[in-house]
């Protein structure tokens, strides 16, 4: 659990047990210690010790951008040590495709992961690596914060929103049948359990990151039962988080307003397909997949942060890659872990470097190498408090 989440969890438990913090009522220090101890057993307490994070460099440009991120983290003196693992698809007992056991064991132990781009070979016989990871760790929420970057101009200068997408079911359930020749049926599955989980995560995220409102995106006028169920669970979750404003909006209205005035949106929560389309739309608003961070939250506290761009095999190994996406995903990871100060410093260094425009990689409009860009960020870190 993140630092903020831990704090809010303690406060909630105290509220539940009718103890208050301000000292007006009876305030049993013993009770607080008991709460803290109980939570310590289930969660990771992020103290000043070194934390281990599983690093999956990936393919193509993956290794070089991972090296860049490791270098920047070292320069920023972040208390993290990396455990590198490789992810491939291997056939386990029973014929099911699984990831290597050492990778799985490492993730289960460390809970935090940072992943570079993985290539999906066509006709390899196994499902895509991302799908495999999703199924292995039950990564139910995909979070993509989209913030306009000063220095990398797009026509949209005032974007500051987060898309939270349900990642396990919906239109991507993969259940399709040919009913008769020429008629295909594709099933969109919406369950109350998954909707409840994503809705509660969205509100929890909004609270922990001090966001003001959550908007549920749906198409319940057409898909009455399925999106209706999703909407109902969101409304129920909203009841438990009265401090966060909850609104509902049709998918088409969101798309229409998003390209005209994206500043009106804050946190968006939605089922799988709409999430896929909208998160890529928002990534396009801020400059593309090369600068967009992304995080996948799973059950049992597992979280894997990744860059969503491709492996770019044409520039692999040539020191031309842009590590921004992976770096910002790593910053997202730091925030999730509660290391807000380090996150702020690294993010500011990154944005300052991009704003300075002196050492930008090719896709950002410059001509520097990846190592030069990394060096510039490390230098910037020295100037930031």
């Amino acid at each position: 659990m993140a630092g903020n989440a831990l704090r809010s969890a303690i406060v909630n438990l105290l509220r539940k047990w009718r103890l208050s913090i301000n000292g007006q009522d009876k305030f049993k220090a013993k009770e607080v210690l008991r709460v803290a101890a109980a939570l310590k057993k289930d969660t990771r307490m992020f103290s000043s010790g070194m934390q281990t994070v599983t690093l999956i460099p990936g393919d193509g440009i993956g290794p070089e951008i991972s090296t860049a991120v490791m270098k920047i983290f070292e320069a920023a003196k972040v208390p993290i040590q990396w455990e590198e693992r490789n992810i491939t698809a291997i056939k386990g007992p029973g014929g099911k495709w699984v990831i290597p056991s050492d990778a799985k064991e490492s993730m289960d132990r460390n809970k935090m992961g940072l992943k570079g781009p993985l290539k999906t070979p066509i006709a390899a016989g196994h499902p895509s690596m991302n799908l495999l990871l999703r199924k292995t760790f039950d990564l139910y929420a995909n979070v993509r914060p989209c913030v306009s970057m000063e220095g990398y101009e797009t026509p949209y200068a005032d974007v500051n929103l987060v898309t939270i997408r349900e990642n396990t079911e919906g239109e991507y359930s993969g259940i399709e049948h040919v009913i008769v020749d020429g008629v295909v049926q594709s099933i969109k599955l919406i369950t109350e359990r998954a909707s409840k989980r994503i809705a509660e995560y969205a509100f929890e995220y909004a609270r922990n990151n001090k966001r003001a409102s959550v908007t549920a995106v749906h198409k319940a006028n057409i898909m009455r039962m399925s999106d209706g169920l999703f909407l109902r669970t969101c409304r129920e979750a909203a009841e438990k988080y009265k401090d966060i404003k909850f609104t509902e909006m049709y998918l088409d209205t969101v798309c229409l307003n998003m390209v005209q005035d994206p500043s009106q949106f804050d946190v968006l929560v939605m089922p799988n397909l709409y999430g896929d389309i909208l998160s890529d739309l928002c990534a396009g608003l801020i400059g593309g997949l090369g600068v967009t961070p992304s995080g996948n939250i799973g059950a049992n506290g597992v979280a894997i942060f990744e860059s969503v761009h491709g492996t770019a095999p044409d520039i692999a190994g040539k020191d031309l890659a842009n590590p921004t996406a992976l770096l910002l995903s790593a910053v997202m990871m730091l925030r999730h872990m509660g290391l807000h100060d380090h996150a702020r410093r690294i993010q500011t260094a990154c944005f300052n470097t991009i704003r300075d425009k002196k050492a930008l990689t090719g896709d950002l409009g410059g001509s520097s190498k990846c190592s030069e860009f990394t060096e510039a960020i490390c230098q910037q870190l020295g100037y930031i408090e």
Partner: protein
Amino acid sequence: MTVPPVSSLITALKPLFGNLLSRACGSALCHRRHNSTYAARPIIPPPAQYGGRHTVTLIPGDGIGPELANHVQELFRFCCVPVDFEVVHVDSSMASEDDINNAIMAIRRNGVALKGNLETNHNLPPSHISRNNLLRTTLDLYANVMHCRSLPGVLTRHHNIDILIIRENTEGEYSSLEHENVPGVVECLKIITRSKSLRIADYAFKMAREKGRGQVTAVHKANIMKLGDGLFLECCQEVASRYPEIAFDSMIVDNTTMQLVSRPQQFDVMLMPNLYGNVVSNVCAGLVGGPGLVPGANYGEDYAVFEMGTRNTGKSLANRNAANPTAMLLASCLLLDHLKLHAYASMIRRAILSTVTETRLHTEDLGGQGSTSEVVQSIMKTIQSNGPLTVSK
């Protein structure tokens, strides 16, 4: 009496009885039309006229619909357009489907309609289907066509956009087939059929050819929905092979939205199933200036219904004289083009587009403070100064 002898009889007797006979025997021809399969080229009848005037069904709808419908009628009266409107009110909150069935009957009678959006309360049970959807599927209005063009005088982030969006309008995710087998688990069916996909693809390519467009892009998600969107893509490729002069490519929907907000000028004609069409048409409408500027048309084999492109009810703008009438008025121009009243259509369209460039008349949605009636007045004044004789006020 079989059909061919009837039609030859009609042609023989036409000089004697004029149109009367064709209208009387028209229903027999209609019957043949409905039975034609996709393979046969349907006979599109000439627009029904009586005394030189057309009758068009007008469904005002909810929200800003009624006031915009009034403006359309006012403008047509002013320009002496030979169109009579048969107004059919549909109460979208009523549980019974009688109202919408009356409207559908009226459209079958007249063949053409102009409609405002009917609101759907999504908190009602699933038995209450969206009235708009019901209309589209019953009349088999299989093609939704929206032309998004950058207009001079409208401030947008992107320029030189000219995209023709053709969206399958009757199947896909909008099949309204849902069930709950186990409490808490809902399944919604998305249906893609070969015949409808071929039909819409053929429509798109035909339209691209007619309008001299060079490229058609199919939007899909076949990497995930391999069978469903895979079938759609396959049908598009099959039809594309019959139009070698038009370039065909395909793009995945999430990449499409990303490209649309960064470089929309790369797109020419876009062809897609129902839901992606909803997303892409709204994104494109937003890119060219908003829902108040883009008209939409729904074409079927026998009927055509015109409306605002993004199908909004505009509840917040209702009755405030603040809605932008451009989209509805441009939709009425599309209607006039369909009725082959091209002179009236171009005259009104020219006037509308010249008014849109006047920034001081921009309505709220374009960032101005003009009112709906001011815009309509300006259009009428432009027509009066340029066009033929109009009704003097």
